[in-house]
């Protein structure tokens, strides 16, 4: 079996589980905090046979926006951790001053851990984009606040930009550009 595929498989399990846990936990917190009345039905049509519903549009909007935002926040934190670690490692490899600063701040464990930050980053950004798209879909069918969906989308695009930049930095480090090239 390909080592890369196995590695992707192992690393994808945590963010995939966190997407589901984040959504369910966000929904639970929204119901508890705002004292909402969630109802469960078992209509046999479509793919799913269990449906959750509220009796008012305002409740649906509030609970779903909170659960989507909570799920997105969890994924964003994970992605940012890998983004920072990958950038620190790249900087430390090319710049000894950064390495000294990292040692002084006692953050060496953050970059010397035997793990593939870029692979993790790629997987986490995939799930982050997935949650961004899902939130946008919910906004289009009026079950998510529009401003929350746009904020989610904006943050996703910015994070994606930083991720692409991180990959470019790594590629430039492995295959340096010709210095005479303009």
């Amino acid at each position: 079996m390909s080592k890369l595929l196995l590695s992707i498989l192992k690393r994808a399990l945590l963010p995939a589980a966190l997407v589901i846990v984040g959504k369910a936990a966000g929904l639970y917190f929204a119901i508890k905090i705002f004292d909402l009345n969630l109802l469960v039905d078992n209509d046999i049509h479509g793919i799913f046979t269990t449906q959750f519903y509220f009796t008012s549009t305002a409740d649906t909007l509030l609970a779903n926006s909170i659960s989507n935002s909570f799920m997105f926040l969890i994924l964003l934190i994970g992605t940012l951790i890998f983004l920072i670690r990958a950038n620190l490692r790249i900087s430390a490899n090319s710049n000894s001053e950064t390495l000294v600063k990292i040692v002084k701040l006692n953050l060496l464990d953050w970059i010397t851990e035997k793990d593939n930050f870029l692979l993790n980053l790629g997987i986490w950004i995939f799930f982050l984009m997935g949650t961004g798209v899902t939130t946008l879909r919910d906004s289009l069918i009026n079950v998510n606040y529009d401003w929350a969906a746009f904020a989610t989308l904006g943050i996703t695009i910015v994070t994606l930009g930083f991720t692409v930049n991180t990959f470019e930095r790594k590629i430039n480090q492995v295959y340096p550009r010709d210095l005479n090239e303009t």
Partner: protein
Amino acid sequence: MNQPPIKATLNSVTILIIAFIAVMPFLTIINLTPETRQEFRPHVLGVQAQNVSLVDGQHEYIRNEKLDIKDSNLAIYSAVITARNSGTYSKPIVTLANDSNTTKKYKVFTTGTLKSTTSKLGVIVNETNYILLSGEENTPYHMISVKPSSSVEVYLRIENSFHISYDESISIDFLEVSDQTQ
């Protein structure tokens, strides 16, 4: 160079598992997305169809709206009025419909109380303001008539002279009365 058949099969299976892990969380969160639905009412022989329906919609301070249909002639509207600034707020809450040939009458009253003794709770029907609760004082009830083949929209009206910093639960009863029972 060609891969051994077992290795190729294992790789294909791993790719399928990865695809499943990538898609499954998003299908799950689509399933976890709540919908808005009117509460299920069993059709019981002898129980008339209800003429009171929830308007629904959003309001800055009026949340968690519910319409509990107790029996054929009693419907109880409940909601949470959140912390709010001083002022008067209103929102359409229920529609009283009459598809019969005779005028229908509803007793509108509240059995609840308000925590804020300076607030007033009432309803607006056809631009007439009916106060149901003024501080700690309950008005016994108001009669609202609905002409044949017509409907009226009932607005909730809440008035408070001072800023209220806590949430309050309210309920309003709509009792359909016949001429004999008035």
